[in-house]
């Protein structure tokens, strides 16, 4: 920066602000970036409940690490500006004139644009690997290995509860979500009324539940665990109470649970519609 005349008419020598900021930024980045990569990145949710969850943890780790230097630059610049260019007490002098610097602007725009494009490319590449646990609509384009033999579970949302159907278990429906471990699962998510969103938090699965739509999401379970399910779409006054817990269990335990759940389901089986990827309940007698 050039020197500016003071109100007293003298010329004070300005420090090289740009160099100070850059040096402080490099030092802070060298300290913060490894810390973020090693300690913060791995603990960002959702965790390792599924292969998709593990992918998300890796993605979060990479992206958080990459944006750390940028965050450091903004922080350093912000703090330096607040302290260095603060008006002195009692001073009535105007601040230094603000002028554009095409070189700084060019570097900023190009650097941030490249970073954004690189992160978008990385995110897209990762998303297309196995679907990253997200709902892909009725015609998914990203699949995990062995998806042809995936174990199918249907998620049905309604105000304000999720229920689950298992087509391979005679279409059994349950208010419990139990999954076998180390298994490729395909969720078919739909709704009977308004828009909900099925979010199995620790599994890294999130898929909108739209009435009349089959939204498909894949997951490959890891070991036994308990996970939380929440609705992630504001679906009415009691949306906040639309939650339950699910379990990933060993195959033998799953078989035992399935046997009991099928027995519980048997009396209502004849009244439940045949398994379908969507349901369109008839208009109800009192519905307006």
């Amino acid at each position, binding site marked *: 920066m050039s020197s500016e005349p003071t109100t007293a008419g003298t010329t004070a020598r300005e420090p090289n602000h740009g160099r100070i900021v850059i040096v402080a930024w490099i030092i802070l980045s060298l300290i913060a970036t490894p810390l973020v990569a090693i300690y913060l990145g791995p603990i960002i949710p959702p965790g390792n409940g599924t292969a998709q969850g593990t992918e998300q943890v890796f993605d979060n780790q990479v992206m958080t690490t990459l944006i750390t230097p940028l965050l450091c630059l903004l922080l350093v610049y912000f703090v330096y500006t607040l302290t260095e260019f603060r008006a002195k007490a009692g001073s009535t002098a105007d601040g230094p004139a603000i002028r554009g610097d095409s070189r700084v602007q060019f570097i900023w725009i190009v650097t941030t644009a490249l970073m954004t494009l690189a992160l978008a490319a990385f995110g897209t590449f990762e998303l297309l690997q196995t679907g990253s646990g997200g709902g892909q609509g009725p015609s998914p384009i990203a699949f995990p290995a062995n998806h042809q033999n995936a174990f199918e579970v249907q998620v*049905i949302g*309604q*105000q*304000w*509860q999720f*229920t689950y159907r298992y087509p391979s278990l005679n279409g059994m*429906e349950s*208010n*419990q979500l139990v999954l076998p471990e180390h298994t490729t699962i395909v969720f078919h998510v739909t709704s*009977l*009324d*308004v828009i909900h969103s099925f979010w199995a938090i620790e599994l890294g699965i999130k898929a909108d539940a739209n009435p009349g739509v089959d939204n498909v999401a894949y997951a490959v379970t890891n070991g036994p665990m308990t996970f939380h399910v929440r609705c992630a779409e504001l679906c*009415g*006054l*009691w949306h906040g*109470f639309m939650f*339950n817990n699910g379990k990933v269990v060993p195959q033998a335990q799953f078989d035992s649970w399935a046997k009991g759940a099928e027995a*519980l*389901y048997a*009396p*209502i089986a004849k*009244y*439940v*519609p045949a398994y379908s990827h969507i349901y369109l*309940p*008839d208009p*109800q*007698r*009192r*519905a*307006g």
Partner: protein
Amino acid sequence: MRGTGFKFLMAGAAVVIAGVVIGLYVSKLTNLAASPAYSVPVKQTASGPVVNMTIQTVAAVGPKLSPNPDWVSYLIQNASGQWKRETVWKLPANATVHVTIYNFDGASALRNNYLARPQGTDGNVYTVDGKTLNAINPDDASHTFAVPQLGLIVAIPGVADNAKNQCDYAPCAMSNAHRTIQFTFHTHAPGQYRWQCFVPCAAGWIDGFGGPMQTIGYMDGFLDVA
């Protein structure tokens, strides 16, 4: 520029005010402390606390009990035999709860037929007019009493459309046509457990699920387990 700033300020203030008003309205609807709670009498026994609850469901709550006389509603009978439109019920933890529901309303049918299977009750069964059942025809369902957090689902069959002496407004008398549903369930850890009706039975509301279906004091409430 000053004019633009002023407009931004006004727009921001309007957004904040609207947010506060909406927040206050929602908190009023969902605030348990503002809702009358009924402490159900508890009988201490050797096997733990036992509670008997008597409830009625009505097609129209009537002008004596509500400013919304046409709204469908649950009512609970207090110790002196009066029917109260209170749907937050204080219950002891780890208690056995015997419930009797008198339903004076007709059938509306379930949106999810699976919910016609009683669950979370003792033996996963209940009695309807003295007959033990493990399912009803979902088309016959008038209401449900369901506590998702407890896994409790009870579908309540409705009064036949051609039944004689149907009740117009609550509180209904036992001489009016009704169904009697009885079951037993158990409370567990202390907490607030939301209960609701899953039958879209709110006449005149979109999808039958507005108004009384989303308002404490009518078709949903809480078990305040302590």
